[in-house]
């Protein structure tokens, strides 16, 4: 029962929250202090800011590599919907994944310490899950196994997810007129984690349709067993035990002004780990024993009138006995993100750029490229447009704005928000970061575009 509850929790987590932070549009919007989350060398255009607790930065991202709404649903003339499982199955690649990510700043602020140095602080709750699944699972359901006679179906799944709090202190330092470097040191407190070390499942159908199911699984979790037992709580009294899951992270980055028009930047974020110690539970299926061949009912048992089918089902259940173990500790890496940017200045406070992104989380490695344009309308408003593509999604039109009515700054940035209304049912990826900051002291020098184009404003 507990096992099923666990699986239910994991499944629900995957369905309702899958996230991966990749942001293209935000890169060229340095009026928004949170742009420094992508590259700690970025310096906001305000000498100081305070993120309003809970609403200064809310980020959500969902990515489903396998299919979009229109791949599954078709509207008929009578306005009813038809679920097209065949089409869904055809759309899937051999490996598919949901990635779900959310962040929310509990508290953040930053200020310029001196003309060369800018400091910032953030306390952020983060959540990321990545669920990888093969198309053979859907193929088995939709098409059946008849096309796989004499072949092996890959039913391997992988789930990695974690929720944690990040307490970060960042600094950017202008080394000279061309080079600016930055770093953010982060203390991490883990709340919940599931890590799939191994989850290989295969189904082989032989020439007489005997089904051999084999499994090799090891999943480690922290905090989930308590949750499944109803012991999970986050309160002032309970929060201390989650500090047992501690870790450290580091973001580093830099920008370099090649000439008056061209600037490049690079950053690596979330170099680090969390050591999980609280409520550690592992679930293991031993490869050596986790194999069962369904050959139907033994005709001898059928003749002898024993409860042949029940015996068969008992054997199946006994072959896949999940061994549950408690205690110990394990370490998981943060989802490592890399950005490389190139920015080129155009007349009239306009900037265009290209952003290359990669992220590795668990067994999933994803990359993307975005083209971004930004225009500042004085010190009160700036607007960005972007186009990006990543694996299996090529229709991502993004946009962002920052409206500054000092001391308030309201912003919203998405890499697919613009495209979503146009073809919402076709998209596989959507993200959005939005919030309200208190900003002070518009830094004209920092805001000024660093070349002779400034004079054209």
């Amino acid at each position, binding site marked *: 029962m507990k096992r099923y509850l666990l699986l239910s929790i994991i499944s629900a987590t995957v369905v309702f929250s899958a996230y991966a932070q990749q942001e293209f549009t935000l890169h060229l919007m340095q009026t928004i202090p949170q742009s420094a989350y992508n590259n700690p060398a970025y310096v906001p255009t305000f000498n100081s800011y305070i993120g309003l607790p809970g609403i200064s930065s809310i980020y959500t991202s969902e990515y489903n590599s396998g299919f979009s*709404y229109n791949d599954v*649903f078709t*509207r*008929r003339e*009578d*306005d*009813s*919907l*038809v*679920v097209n*499982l*065949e089409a869904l199955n055809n759309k899937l690649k051999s490996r598919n994944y949901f990635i779900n990510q959310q962040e929310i700043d509990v508290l953040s602020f930053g200020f310029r310490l001196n003309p060369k140095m800018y400091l910032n602080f953030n306390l952020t709750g983060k959540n990321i899950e990545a669920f990888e699944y093969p198309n053979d699972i859907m193929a088995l*359901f*939709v*098409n*059946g*196994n*008849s*096309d796989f*006679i004499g072949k092996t179906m890959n039913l391997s799944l992988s789930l990695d997810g974690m929720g944690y709090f990040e307490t970060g202190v960042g600094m950017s330092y202008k080394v000279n007129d061309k080079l600016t470097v930055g770093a953010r040191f982060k203390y991490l407190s883990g709340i919940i984690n599931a890590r799939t070390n191994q989850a290989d499942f295969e189904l082989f*159908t*032989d*020439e*007489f*349709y*005997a*089904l051999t199911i084999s499994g090799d699984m090891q999943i480690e979790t922290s905090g989930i067993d308590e949750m499944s037992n109803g012991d999970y709580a986050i309160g002032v009294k309970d929060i201390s035990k989650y500090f047992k899951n501690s870790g450290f992270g580091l973001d580093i980055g830099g920008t370099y002004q090649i000439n008056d028009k061209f600037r490049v930047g690079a950053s690596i974020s979330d170099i680090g780990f969390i050591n999980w110690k609280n409520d550690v539970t592992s679930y293991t299926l031993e490869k050596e024993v986790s194999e069962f061949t*369904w*050959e*139907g*009912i*033994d*005709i*001898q*048992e*059928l*003749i*002898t009138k024993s409860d042949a089918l029940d015996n068969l089902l008992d054997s199946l259940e006994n072959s896949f006995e999940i061994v549950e173990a408690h205690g110990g500790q394990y370490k998981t890496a943060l989802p490592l993100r890399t950005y490389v940017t190139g920015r080129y200045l155009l007349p009239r406070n306009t900037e265009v750029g290209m952003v290359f992104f990669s992220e590795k989380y668990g067994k999933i490695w994803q990359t993307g490229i975005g083209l971004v344009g930004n225009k500042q*309308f*004085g010190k*009160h*408003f700036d607007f960005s447009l972007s186009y990006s593509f990543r694996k299996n999604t090529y229709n991502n039109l993004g946009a962002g*704005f920052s*409206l500054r009515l000092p001391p308030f700054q309201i912003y919203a940035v998405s890499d697919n*928000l613009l495209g*979503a*209304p*146009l073809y*919402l*049912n076709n998209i596989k990826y959507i993200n959005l970061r939005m919030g309200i900051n208190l900003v002070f002291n518009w830094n004209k020098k920092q805001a000024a575009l660093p070349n002779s184009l400034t004079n054209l404003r």
Partner: protein
Amino acid sequence: MIGYRSKYTIFFVLILSMVGVVACFNEDDYNLDKIAAIEWDPSYAIKFLHGELSINDFEKDLKDFDIRTDPDGLLYFYYESYNESDSLTGIVEFSDVSANASFNSMVNFVGSLNEELLVVDDTFVIDLGLSGGQIDSVFYEMLGLDIIFGCTANLGYELTFTFPTFLEEGVPITRTYTRTTNDPIANQRLDQFTGFLADLTQDDPPYNHFPIAIQAKLLPASNVTITQADFFEFKFDISNQDFNWIVGYFEPQSRGLSDEDLSIDIFDRNFEGEYGLEGTKMSFEIEHDFGVPIRLAFNTLQASNSEGAVLPIEIDPVSPIDINYPTVLGTSARDLITVTNASDIFNFKPDGFQYQVEAFVNEGIGDGRNFLADTSKARVKFIAEIPLWGYASGIVLQDTVQIDLQGLSEDGVEIDPKAAYLKTLITNGYPVDIAVQAVMLDENFLIIDSLLRKDQTLLVKAALTNDTGIQEEGVFDGEIELEEQKLDALFDATYMIVIGRLRTFTNTDGSQPNVKFFEQANVSVDMGLRTDLNIKVKP
């Protein structure tokens, strides 16, 4: 510095953008109630039957039969009925015996007696009254002895009874009783002897008798008066004789050994259809523990069938038969009486055997030394051995299984089978053609349809065998397409009767030679079902 008009323009654009975003969102797209149906057409392949089947697996269905293997590996059905009788232990009968004796005093004496005085010293012989035998030795488990004694003189005395031929661990049994002047004139003593050997040969005739030596002594007393006219009287009552064994000559007599009317439905129940089997053996095995010549007479020996017909059972040797007997106590002797018309009896399909056996002891024999024990028995065993060697046709094996494929279609889920293919590999090691069909029935056991069309025969050919074993196995390897309407019937059915029609190997000219079924043979089965379905789920 941005002007008020610019600010309003920016707000206007932003609000317009948000309205545009919301307007493009069609809520109906995400209303699950709008989903009319989920429909797909999977094709599943699953194995549903496997394994090996041998004739031994049907043993439990064969009433009263065992399946055995002869030294050549040939299978045969084995049946035995067993009857045990102890009626012969009654050929020698022990009955209660009563005997009286009287002995006069050997002396005259008046006065004061200072020491014991022997007044009676004599021996008395008792006939045990055995009938049916002249027994010289008995080992008794128990013997009850009731002695009543008295004397005409009112004196104190001591009586000693010695049984010189009743040996308890080699020592004669002795009993002593004392009478005081205060006791009644007549006294009774009850006694019980156990576990002793009685030699009954020390008298004439030298069997069935035993002696008792009696001594009477007057006890010292004053004023003793006894004359030779005084006498002692005794009465001996012997009862509860329970022997362990007896030895002697058993007089000629007869006893019914077995009077059986066996209801045997093994043949008509287990051998339906047409068949002819070779090498059928039937016999009576007689075993007994009695050390005496016995002549057996089968007064009745016949088989009857369900039609009321009777067929005499012929035996070798013919009745009456002088059977063997053991020469040492505790051993047994055995005789085998063969039924010479076993094949006729088998083909007669009997449902009952009637036999009445009478045993004649020492028939025509005037002397000898015989024995029996209280545990001695005579056992009559009827044995039938039917080798699976011959031909048969029209044999039907069937089994009913409950199925519930209706349960697959639940509320809102419709499963419509479009096509199905039965992939089958059957390897047959038995020399019998097996034709398989399945019939589907509803909950009232009314036939809905058959699973296969008439022209779709799942016929597994017979293996070829000879006297040395299997020459070539019969194989069915094919895929049978099931009709859609029959699949519908399958999904509607509650029960399915799987029927196998058997016919032994048939030559091209239609003749059926005798074939043999060997122990190492079996039928191996692999069956899988590939089915194309249309599944419709209505939320």
